[in-house]
């Protein structure tokens, strides 16, 4: 069963329903999809594979999915605006015999395949790193994402669970940064004056640079800010490192997870048996790989590995056999 399924999928159509395209991360994600889809079409691995983005509106996305059902797609890949609100339409799609793959933020409807990160481990890795650097004692600022979002809930739960192991790490402040540098900067800047010394900032990606700017403006000593793989974060980290020996690490989801979902859908259509839940490794960048990733990431963009069919199949294999996930190789 393992390995690449080879059945002919050149006439199959995969629709991608994306909940939101209004930030750079999502733009890269859509672009990654288009890149891999174009390539796959050249290789006669797929037929048509269009993208439709909704405006962060569940109802709009649900309408898009319903239209895809109407148009008779073979598979629908979903980046969902809500992990439960699409259940109704996903069920309709499954009932119509369509393969549904949701990724990065799941759809709880059991008939859908899920391609996702272990969000809790995101938080755990942050806390473990910070605890090791601070020798288990210090003040933390937590930057969360959007209230009511399941990803935000899962990462934060991971952070708080990991914190139980370090009783002397204390969260002294918490803001919602909406995964946006500008918002994070504003919220953090407004909070800093009323905080005691902050030793580390744990966040959810996309907000590290904003926090750094807020701390810079406040004139406070710079805490350890966990970065989120954005080019500006890596560049800032590198510059701080050269100037002041600043150390941190960077972790985040990768936009190209859309490619993983693409290949998973393609493989299912090709007849491969795939587990209902496929975990994808988070991209963690430590000091030694920083410069390589930085060089590979376009200015203002996000570190974004390219997932080949082979790499994705090995991820599927690892999931099927509960083996450790393959590491994402750093760029040369």
């Amino acid at each position, binding site marked *: 069963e393992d390995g690449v399924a080879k059945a002919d999928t050149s006439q199959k159509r995969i629709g991608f329903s994306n909940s939101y395209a209004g930030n750079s991360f999502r733009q890269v994600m859509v672009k990654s999809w288009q890149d891999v889809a174009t390539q796959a079409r050249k290789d006669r691995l797929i037929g048509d594979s269009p993208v439709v983005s*909704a405006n962060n509106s569940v109802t709009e996305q*649900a309408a898009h999915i*319903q*239209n895809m059902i109407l148009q008779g797609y073979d598979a629908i890949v979903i980046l969902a605006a809500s992990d*439960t609100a699409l259940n109704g339409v996903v069920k309709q799609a499954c009932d119509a015999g369509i393969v549904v793959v949701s990724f990065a933020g799941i759809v709880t409807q059991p008939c859908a395949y899920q391609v996702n990160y272990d969000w809790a481990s995101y938080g755990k890795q942050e806390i473990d790193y910070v605890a090791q650097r601070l020798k288990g004692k210090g003040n933390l600022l937590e930057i969360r994402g959007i209230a009511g979002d399941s990803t935000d809930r899962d990462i934060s739960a991971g952070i708080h669970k990991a914190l139980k192991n370090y009783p002397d790490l204390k969260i002294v402040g918490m803001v919602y940064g909406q995964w946006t540098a500008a918002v994070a900067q504003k919220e953090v800047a407004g909070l800093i004056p009323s905080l005691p010394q902050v030793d580390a900032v744990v966040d959810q990606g996309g907000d590290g640079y904003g926090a750094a700017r807020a701390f810079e403006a406040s004139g406070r000593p710079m805490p350890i800010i966990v970065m989120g793989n954005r080019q500006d974060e890596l560049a800032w980290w590198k510059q701080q490192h050269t100037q002041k020996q600043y150390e941190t690490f960077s972790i985040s989801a990768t936009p190209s997870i859309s490619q993983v979902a693409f290949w998973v859908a393609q493989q299912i259509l090709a007849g491969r048996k795939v587990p209902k839940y496929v975990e994808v490794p988070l991209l963690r960048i430590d000091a030694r790989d920083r410069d390589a990733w930085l060089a590979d990431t376009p200015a203002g963009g996000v570190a974004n590995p390219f997932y080949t069919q082979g790499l994705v199949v090995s991820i599927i294999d690892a999931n099927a056999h509960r083996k450790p996930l393959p590491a994402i190789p750093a760029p040369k």
Partner: protein
Amino acid sequence: MLDPAAFVHRPGSVRAEHLSAALPAFALAVMLGIIFWIQPRALSYFGINLLLNLSVPLILAAMAQMLIISLGDIDLSIGSFVGFVTCVVAVFLASAPLLAAAILLAAIGVYAGTAMLIFYRSLPSIVVTLGMSFVWLGLSLLILPSPGGLAPDWLTGLLDAKPPLLPLPVWIAVLAAACGHWAVMRSSYGVVLRGAGANPKAVARSGWSLVRVRVVVYAAAGCLAVLAGIVLSAITTSGDPNVAPAYTLLSIGAVILGGGSFTGGIISPVGVVIGAMTFSLAASLLSFLQLPPVWQTGAQGAILFLVLAGRVLVQGRKP
């Protein structure tokens, strides 16, 4: 209150007026035509059902917004209120139906209370409802910290009904338009409502209690919004605090698109229903057109322009 420029006497032809009233309907028909042409499969009982069932909650929300706009007010909280209702439905309706009903009734009461607050303190509704939007979002997060819950099966089943002749969403749209038209345009109390929106002083001088009119209107709007939330949670089978923030703007847009005006008293329930369907179809038309992702957003704008550009043709250059 009224922009008098809109009322300067100009003997305009009645035909042009009727034509412009029919425009949104025409635009909607054209849009449907394009969709059926691109995707003939959509032209079936099943297809139309799929195409239109998500416009049902928007129609209800837009009718609620219409009532508020008819008073010259505006409701910026309707999106988060609908989200709140879906949470209540998903969390409580199956396990504790009485509690759910009580909460929803209380929520309608809050709507009515908002009306009184706005009236007695003569506050701008825009600020009060903006504040309420935070309150509703907060309350829904309190009930349901992250999306989940499950709408009861009987509710989900209700929306799967297959009435004869036309699919359920079409029936509901027609019914909503007819009831709305009767209640607001034909019934004797609807007259008072529209009068109070345009010239509250005159209505008060005739002995009507303005505060009562407002309370009734807000409570009715609350009921419709509750219905919208219930239907939405039936479609999505779950609750989500952030399910419908877009409804705030969409519902306002639908009212205006349907021929309503912010100046109060000028509304058209039939137009609103069509406006709401237009908005929800405009978004899904995109998924048929297969545009490059970057231009999908812009295309929605272009569709809006095309839908409305006909007004110039019908009414001539001068307003």
